[in-house]
């Protein structure tokens, strides 16, 4: 009997042999289906609002707010993460996923207080999106300005 003498690379090969994987094809289509449906829902909301006479830009803004509300509500009800187990990126990428990323840390940090718990953690997952979104917008604007 000896000791386990494997290099990390050899061990990675062994892990791949035993690791449980799910079908990447199935994941692709699950994400496609749910993501597509959420986008379709957004389009439905926009078209319905336009047909009631609301101008196109405002309709878009209302659709955004509605989807944020839906995402936040489903997160609060504890349903969003169940859907996400099926949909993967289909629930992460749409703006409902952004709402989920804001509500989920806030809702459970509330137990540490409203200021330092909820208030601070609202940004803990969504923060990078805001930071790098603003940064890249600024840089692109700067780039165009200097050109």
């Amino acid at each position, binding site marked *: 009997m000896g000791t386990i003498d*494997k290099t990390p690379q050899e061990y990675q090969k062994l892990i791949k042999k035993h690791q449980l994987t799910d079908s990447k094809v199935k994941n692709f289509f699950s994400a496609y289906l749910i993501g597509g449906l959420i986008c379709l829902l957004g389009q439905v909301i926009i078209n319905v609002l336009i047909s009631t006479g609301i101008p196109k830009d405002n309709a878009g803004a209302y659709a955004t707010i509605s989807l944020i509300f839906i995402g936040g509500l489903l997160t609060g009800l504890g349903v969003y993460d169940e859907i996400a187990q099926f949909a993967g990126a289909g*629930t992460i990428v749409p703006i409902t996923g952004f709402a989920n990323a804001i509500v989920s840390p806030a809702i459970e940090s509330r137990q540490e207080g409203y200021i330092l718990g909820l208030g601070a953690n609202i940004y803990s997952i969504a923060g990078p999106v805001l930071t790098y979104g603003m940064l890249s917008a600024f840089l692109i604007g700067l780039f165009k300005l200097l050109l």
Partner: protein
Amino acid sequence: MKKLGKQTVQFDNPPQIISSASVVGNKESQGPLGDYFDQVISDGYNNQSTWEKAQMKMTEDVVNNALDKVNLAKEDIDFLLAGDLLNQIVASNFAARKFPVPFLGLFGACSTMIEAMAVGSMMIDGGIANRIISFTSSHYQATERQYRTPNEYGDKYPPYKQWTVTGAGATILSNETGGVALTMATLGKVIDLGVKDPKDMGSAMAPAAADTILNHLEDSDRSPSDYDLIITGDLGQVGKNLTIELLAEQGCDVTKNFDDCGVMIYNSKQKVGAGGSGCGCSAVVAASYLLPQIMYGNFNRVLLLGTGALLNPMTFLQGESIPCIAHAVVLERTGHLTEGIGRPSVQDNLATKIEATKIEDLSQSEG
């Protein structure tokens, strides 16, 4: 006690387990071992305001339960040894504050229960303690939020990820006669084979488990067939298969008698990925399932390993891999029965299979 080889301790007067108890969550009570656990909490909040408090309450309850089973008071215990997965092991600390007894906090991640039993045994065999309690706990929601992402966050779990057991387990070790004896302990080294994925604990811990098993067998001059069962704490399906193969490569065949608490505690319909994990996993399965099986003779000698991943959320972000550890204890049937091990329904079930003449029943003289 004496040291065997580099990592193993052999006890001259093996400490004996006189009582054990478990408290679990709903998911665990619906698993294959559901009928064995002593107490089930109402939901993840356990009638508390936060999950962390729920875990603290579970820990307090399980220790009280273990004491009540054998009519012991808190003052009858000499030392407490415990740990858990919460930052600074607060579930254990806060449970220990109810005791007028010295407390040693331990961190072995998911191997803490076995680590506590090993260290406690050394205190008993070394003559400075008559009774010690080793206990640990884990809680699914509290662990997810600390180590990974918020619970309501929509992140899809890969199929090899494990589910942290919501459970607390406690055992009382003593120099009095009990149902199961702890005859040897092998303390593990930290092993790191470069696994970086914090969702794949099983793969990270398998080398540590294999290393401890090999060193134990070498130190004790035994082979796998000397044990009725070699069981690990929470390797999960992936880790279990990896360990079997790592051992086979070194000429050690465990295919006939190897199992894992994480694989046993849930069934495949419960959507738990590769199986259970967490300190509570090995603790509750050992306390409520393994110990009665050993006491009533279904297993005579068992090698129980606790496996732990020694990372924190920051090391992963800093690009580090996951170092792991595994500790082992040898549990042997004493031939005596104690009221403290197993639920009454479990005891009745198992006792009917034992011939009364072979066993000396000490349940009347327990105190």
